């Protein structure tokens, strides 16, 4: 029998780490259960010559392909966009591009401004101090002063422009369109124990140098030093409740596969927009027959992915290829609503530096632009090291039919029902994607690119898992209140991307972590009457 804890956090990724770190100062007994383990940078792909081959196997972005013991399967057959994630201490911050935009102030008032979806119950200003605090701890690099982005103050200078950035910047200038060096969580100087980036290459699947920020090397060491307990290889099956309808703890499987019960006074879920609804639905009971905290019926609904419209081509000049982090610049030219474009809301753009030789060969062969036979060598030399790309992150609006449910058959290695995704791309999103591809083609052609190829949507592009336990003041239209507490269970909180009301057109991790810090701050302010 485990001793009860004051606070139990489920998941040690982006949001779980942030909330653990913030709550540590309360000196409460805080325990985090994480289904994965600690990562070993000595085993990261960039330490071996077969670094690109690993992306197709044990370092694949899809848990279904990767199939590590820490992963759980996801039935995403009914979705054109497949879920990608990572399960370990650090979660998907171990495997992400480190691109670091924030939601814009306007993203919190979508209903008011554009008459669609819903407003958030909080605004940008409420999160501002937590964005700043999070940027300091994660360690961001960038250039202040972007006229079309929220004002940020990255503590480190931006990444070098490189060869690709100059080609893209010149093309954008010719077209008169906005571009700016991206804020990233790649350290460009030595920073609080992390070494600076030395351009190991495509660092999405983890950074052996430790330059790319992930919460296993930022928040967690500090949280553990402050007294938080982190138990790895522990997979939570369900959250239990008592006779008063309060969360009483969790049932989980420990590293040896033994079923355990852990009692807790407060439970915080930080399992992302797929894992969180899966856990709530798997926690159905006599008192909560439709799943825990689901009196609204909205648990699992309103899944938002950010459909990516990607277009790329090949220029005559050499590009950065795999010799740098994958993204370097962004554009907010088409971020805000302009109804003359034929759709509401908008998209951010991240520009892509290039690809490594194996990836270039494999993808180009699949696209039909790299032939078999005698001409293979000539064409490969034209393509390899000459790619630039344009990826639009399209704002997905919430739609209840896009949802996470439990698969009736598929189970994980512990026999826990797996999540099933039902998702379609809306007409509005499709128009946005088509618009982005047309603009991207203009950029590429202005840069002199040929052999233009399209991935729309990027099929393995379900990085951003949002909206499936949305925030709001109305218990009939939302799952958690304006400070992250579930309406139905007064000692149960959610701090991950599932509480997003709308998705914006940017990578969400910065905003997810700011939200987690904001909720932790709200909890600390209300400790005396947290359950009222």
């Amino acid at each position, binding site marked *: 029998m485990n001793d009860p804890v004051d606070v139990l956090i489920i998941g040690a990724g982006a949001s779980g780490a942030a909330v653990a770190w913030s709550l540590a100062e309360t000196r409460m007994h805080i325990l985090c259960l994480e289904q994965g383990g600690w990562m070993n940078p000595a085993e990261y792909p960039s330490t071996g010559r077969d*670094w690109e081959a690993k992306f197709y196997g044990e370092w694949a972005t899809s848990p279904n392909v990767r199939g590590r013991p820490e992963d759980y399967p996801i039935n995403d057959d009914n979705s054109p966009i497949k879920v990608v994630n990572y399960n370990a201490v650090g979660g998907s911050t171990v495997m992400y591009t480190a691109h670091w935009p924030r939601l814009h102030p306007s993203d919190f008032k979508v209903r008011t401004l554009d008459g669609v979806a819903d407003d958030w119950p909080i605004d940008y200003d409420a999160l501002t101090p937590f964005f700043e605090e999070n940027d300091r701890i994660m360690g961001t690099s960038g250039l202040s002063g972007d006229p079309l982005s*929220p004002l940020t103050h990255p503590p480190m200078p931006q990444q*070098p422009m490189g060869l690709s950035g100059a080609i893209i910047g010149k093309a954008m200038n010719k077209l008169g369109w906005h571009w700016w060096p991206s804020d990233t969580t790649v350290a460009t100087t030595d920073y609080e124990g992390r070494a600076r980036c030395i351009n190991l*290459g495509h660092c999405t699947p983890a950074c052996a140098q430790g330059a790319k920020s992930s919460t296993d090397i930022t928040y967690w060491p500090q949280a553990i030093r402050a007294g938080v307990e982190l138990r790895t290889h522990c997979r939570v099956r369900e959250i239990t409740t008592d006779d008063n309808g309060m969360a009483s703890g969790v049932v989980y499987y420990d590293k040896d596969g033994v079923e355990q019960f852990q009692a807790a006074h407060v439970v915080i879920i930080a399992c992302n927009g797929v894992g969180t609804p899966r856990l709530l639905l798997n926690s159905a009971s006599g008192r909560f027959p439709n799943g825990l905290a689901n009196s609204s019926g909205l648990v699992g609904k309103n899944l938002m992915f950010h459909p990516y419209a990607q277009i790329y081509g090949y220029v005559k000049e050499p590009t950065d290829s795999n010799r740098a982090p994958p993204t370097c610049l962004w554009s907010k030219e088409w971020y805000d609503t302009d109804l003359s474009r034929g759709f509401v809301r908008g998209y951010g753009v991240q520009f892509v530096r290039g690809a490594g030789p194996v990836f270039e060969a494999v993808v180009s062969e699949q696209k039909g632009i790299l032939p078999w036979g005698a001409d*293979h060598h000539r064409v490969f030399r034209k393509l390899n090291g000459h790619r630039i790309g344009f990826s639009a992150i399209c704002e997905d609006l919430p739609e209840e039919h896009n949802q996470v449910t439990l698969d009736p058959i598929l189970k994980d290695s512990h026999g826990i029902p797996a999540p099933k995704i039902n998702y379609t791309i809306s007409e509005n999103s499709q128009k946005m994607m088509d618009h982005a591809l047309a603009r991207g083609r203009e950029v590429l052609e202005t840069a002199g690119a040929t052999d233009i190829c399209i991935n729309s949507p990027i099929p393995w592009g379900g990085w951003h898992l949002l909206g499936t336990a949305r925030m709001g003041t109305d218990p009939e239209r939302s799952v958690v209140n304006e400070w992250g507490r579930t309406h139905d269970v007064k000692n149960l909180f959610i701090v991950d991307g599932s509480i997003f009301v709308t998705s914006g057109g940017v990578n969400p991790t910065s905003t997810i972590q700011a939200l987690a810090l904001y909720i932790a701050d709200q909890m600390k302010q209300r400790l005396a009457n947290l359950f009222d």
Partner: protein
Amino acid sequence: MTDQLILTPRQRQDLRTIAALIIPPSEEYRVPGADDEVIQADILATLGRDAGPVATALDHLARLAGMPLADLDAAARDGVVKQFRESGGGPAATLVRVVLQCYYRDERVLRSLGIEMRPPFPKGHVLPEGDWALLDPVRARGGTLRRAPS
């Protein structure tokens, strides 16, 4: 499992043949074909989780060819390869990817491409800083951040 047990001799023979059809040797670029002994050995030694789909692809290829692929005349072989690419599905894609990923890490091939044969870590790469004056037109245009009513 040793590499000899992963694929049958016939499968390995067809793998070598189709690899050469994907990437033949080139005197111009001073590179071997993908049927080169060293590259084939790398493929067999590192098949791992891809062994199943690659074997499936090679079995499909064998059915289409009806005999060792190398024994077909050029026209018949081209026809079989065309069918294989059209009908091979995921296993055929895996086979092609395995050939490409081993070819494009071979020392002779990388040398021909001007790529150093080493893992990215710990040496990394040097990236030119670039001319940030390119941002001057963006600054000059300015712009405003859409605000929300409070």
